[in-house]
Each structure stands twice: as structure tokens, then as C-alpha cells.
């Protein structure tokens, strides 16, 4: 018996590596929280024999990973940051894949009357006017950048906000947990919200303004800068992501009967 345990311990400490085609893709938390990855990855593995290893981070960090060459491609949603990434020569090109949208979440009581808002800017002005507690991601992610641009569009400056504006510096799920605990307003992508398990007293209050659309783009890392990058595999993956098969899977993906993503890649 003891020999068995000793050898089991020895076997555990020896690292076994399986060799298959694999590449690293940095994706945003909002994409991963949607659960779409769990549908797409097994299909990619079956079709291309390619194991895509996902690094789930905010857009800010995803771009940093691409710049350092630590991943082979990135799938993010912050156009300005993506364009800066390309301009600096870190990526080869930008391919739009699909979009989903952002929604405003808040307590059921809705003291700020966000439910009656007509536009996204109007919703934010109502929150600021009521000084209702608002949780911001505050982590330089795509969602955070989007939120800041929306405050700007509503002629408000997030820098000057008082105590009611809480920047938590965390991922979408952690920020939703915080909002749920405080009964606060928050902006989330629809997918993360639908999949979120700790809704508590929160509900979806406003959505639908076209400015809330959220475009996801795929950017392979430039092999000219980082020769070790698996650009062939990144290219294969891109081909698959814009294929009709991917289109069908993305467009038909639903949570609680709601469609989450709209495929809009140019084929």
C-alpha cells in the first residue's frame, strides 16, 4: 500500500506534457462569461485539431499580452485601443467578428428612474442627478473604457464624481457581485449579466441604444515583432471564426431564450 502511495506521489510530481497544436488567445472577461467559448472551443478542436488556450483578462491586459508577444492573438472589444495596437505594429490586422450589447443594471426599486430613460446618455444623467450608487469596473477594460466614453457623451466627467461613484478595479463578475451587495447601478455586457448567478435585488433596467453595441474584433499578433508567435495557427483560427459554421453557432447561441451575439464578419 505504501509503495502505491509513494509511486502515486512520484507520478504526480513528474510533469507530463501532451503535444498537440495549441495556441494562446487572450479574450475579455465579458466574452468568456457569456459561455460562448464553451460552445466554440470544442468545435474548433474537432474541425482544426487546434487547442485554443484562453487567457481571460480585461481588454487592457489582453493588449499588453499581445504587445509582449505572450499570446498568439487577441479577441477584444475596444476599437480605439485596438487601433493604437495596430498603429504601433504589434498586430497584423483587425478583423471584426461579432457584436453584443451593454445594458444598465440596477436595484428593483430604481430610485434614479433609469427604467424611463430614452437614451444611454439620459440613463447616466438620471443616475448622476440622483447621485445613486454606481459601480464602475475601473480596471481599464473594454467595458470600463466604454462606460467612460458614455459619461463623456452625457456631458459628465467621471473624474469629478462624488462618493456615490465606486470604481472597484475588478472584472465584470466581481463588479456585479459588488453591485449586488450594495444594491448599486452598474453597466454590464448582456452576456455576463444573463449568466450571472448572484443577481440578488438587481434587474435589467435599460438597453437598446445603438451606442451600447459592443464590437468584438480578432487581432493576430505580428510575427515580424515576435518570431515565436504561431501565426499560421492564428490564421487558421481566424478562417474558422469567420466561417459559415461559426456564424451559425454564434447567431444561434442563446441564454434564457435571448440571443447574445450577432455575427457581422465580412466573409
Amino acid at each position, binding site marked *: 500500500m*505504501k509503495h502505491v*502511495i*509513494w509511486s502515486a*506521489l512520484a507520478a*504526480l*510530481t513528474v*510533469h507530463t506534457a501532451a503535444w498537440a497544436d495549441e495556441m*494562446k488567445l487572450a479574450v475579455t*472577461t465579458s466574452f468568456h*462569461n457569456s459561455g460562448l467559448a464553451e460552445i466554440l472551443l470544442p468545435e474548433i478542436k474537432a474541425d482544426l485539431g487546434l*487547442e485554443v*488556450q*484562453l*487567457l*481571460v*483578462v480585461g481588454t487592457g491586459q489582453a493588449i499588453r499580452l499581445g504587445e*509582449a*508577444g*505572450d499570446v498568439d492573438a487577441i479577441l477584444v472589444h475596444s476599437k480605439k485601443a485596438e487601433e493604437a495596437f495596430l498603429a504601433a505594429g504589434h498586430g497584423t490586422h483587425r478583423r471584426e467578428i461579432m457584436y453584443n450589447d451593454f445594458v444598465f443594471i440596477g436595484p428593483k426599486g430604481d430610485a434614479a428612474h433609469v427604467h424611463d430613460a430614452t437614451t444611454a446618455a439620459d440613463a447616466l444623467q438620471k443616475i448622476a442627478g440622483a447621485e445613486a450608487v454606481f459601480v464602475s469596473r475601473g480596471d481599464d477594460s473594454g467595458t470600463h473604457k466604454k462606460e467612460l466614453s458614455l459619461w463623456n457623451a452625457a456631458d459628465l466627467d467621471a473624474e469629478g464624481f462624488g462618493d456615490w461613484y465606486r470604481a472597484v478595479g475588478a*472584472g*465584470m*463578475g*466581481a463588479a*456585479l*457581485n459588488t453591485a*449586488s451587495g450594495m444594491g448599486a447601478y452598474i453597466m454590464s455586457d448582456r452576456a455576463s449579466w444573463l*449568466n*450571472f*448567478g*448572484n*443577481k440578488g435585488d438587481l434587474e435589467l433596467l435599460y438597453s437598446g441604444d445603438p451606442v451600447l453595441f459592443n464590437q468584438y474584433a480578432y487581432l493576430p499578433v505580428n510575427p515580424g515583432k*515576435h518570431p*515565436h508567435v504561431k501565426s499560421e495557427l492564428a490564421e487558421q483560427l481566424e478562417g474558422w471564426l469567420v466561417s459559415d459554421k461559426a456564424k451559425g453557432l454564434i447567431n444561434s447561441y442563446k441564454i434564457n431564450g435571448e440571443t447574445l451575439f450577432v455575427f457581422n464578419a465580412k466573409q
Partner: protein
Amino acid sequence: MSELWEGITRAIWLVVTLDADLVEITLRSLRVTLSALVVASLIALPLAAVLAVRRFWLRRATIAVLNALMGLPPVVVGLLVYVVLSRDGPLGVLGLLFTPTAMIIAQVIIIVPLIASIAHQSLRELWSDYHDLLISLHTSQFQRICTLLWDGRRALLTAALAGFGRAIGEVGAIMVVGGNIDHHTRVLTTAIALETGKGEFALALGLGFVLIGLAVAVNLCIHWLGQTERTGRW
């Protein structure tokens, strides 16, 4: 409260049904932490013995630094290892970032000071008992170190278990250097962080109870193998 009960039932259910994902991440947790423990012990225990036996320049400083580093913040270690292993960093060519090896490296750095400090403390007391005997026997320094390590093995086991405890429950560093990649670098602690982020508290708690159970099981197992805490033995 209901979440606590749900967490306990989830934990029992996961263990009873031998959930495939749970088995995979549990084995990975064990593999990473036990590898780190073996490497760290190979570094820390001889170092502790040398510190106990030899009187050399900077000895005090080394001990003080080791003691201070016991409280090393894991996330800082993670960040340092990340920067070194990143493709931009000095060891970037090895391509080790976001692999289990990177996680092992980070854990070794975290637990070496802890194991060495605790081991040194007990070996120092043992050395004061053995000092006259070993000197009068004209033993070489190497023989003294070996004697101390062998006769102090029970206390060293405690030091190693403390290291194991710190490593298996650690999340800050391995999250940064491992990246929590599904089927690749996801371990129990990072899975717990992920499920908490999704608001799935019951599953997160369930995994937490599995982690606690695992730590207890490994400790019991090592005591049994080492034949400690039995009648007729100390």
C-alpha cells in the same frame, strides 16, 4: 446560510460523482504544489542545516532576510516571475509564462523562505544538543549536516507541511503567472476565484471544501508515511 449548505452539498456531490473536471483540477493542484514542495525542500532544508552548522559572514543577514521573506506577498512574487518569464523579459525565450512550470517556480519562491526559516529554527536547537558530540567525533561539516537533517526529520516534516499548506491555498501568484487556462493551468484556488467572479457561490464554496479536505488528506497521508504521532514514537 443557505449558500453554505448548498456549498456543502455541492462539495459532497462533486466528490461522490468523481466529477471529471474536479478530478482534473485537483490532480493539477496536487502536481503543481507537490512539485514545488519537493524543489523547495531540496533547496530550503540543506540551506537551513548549513545556517545552523556553519558560522560564516552574512549568516545573520541571511537568516534575517529569510525570516522577513516568510511574509512575501504572493501577488508580488507572481508579478516578478511574470515580468521575468514574459516574452519581453530576460527569460522570455523559454516560453514558460502561462504553463504549470511557471506556477511551480512562483510557488517555490514563496515557500523556500518559510520552510528554511522553520527548519532552521528546529535544527538550531538540535545542533546545540549535538554540538559537543559531533565535534568530539571529528565529523566533517558534511556529516554534521547529514546527521542534523536525518535526526531532525520529524521537525523538518512540519516545516515542509507548512510550506505545502501555504502553496496549495495560494491564488495570487499562480493566477498571474498561470493565467487560469482551462485544462492547462486551472487549479482549485483559481477555479474558486473564477466561480466567485461568476457569482456561483455554491460551486465556489464546494470547491473550497474540496480544497480543505485535500489539504487534510495530504497531511494525514504524510504523517502516516512518516510514522509520526504514534504510540511508542515521538
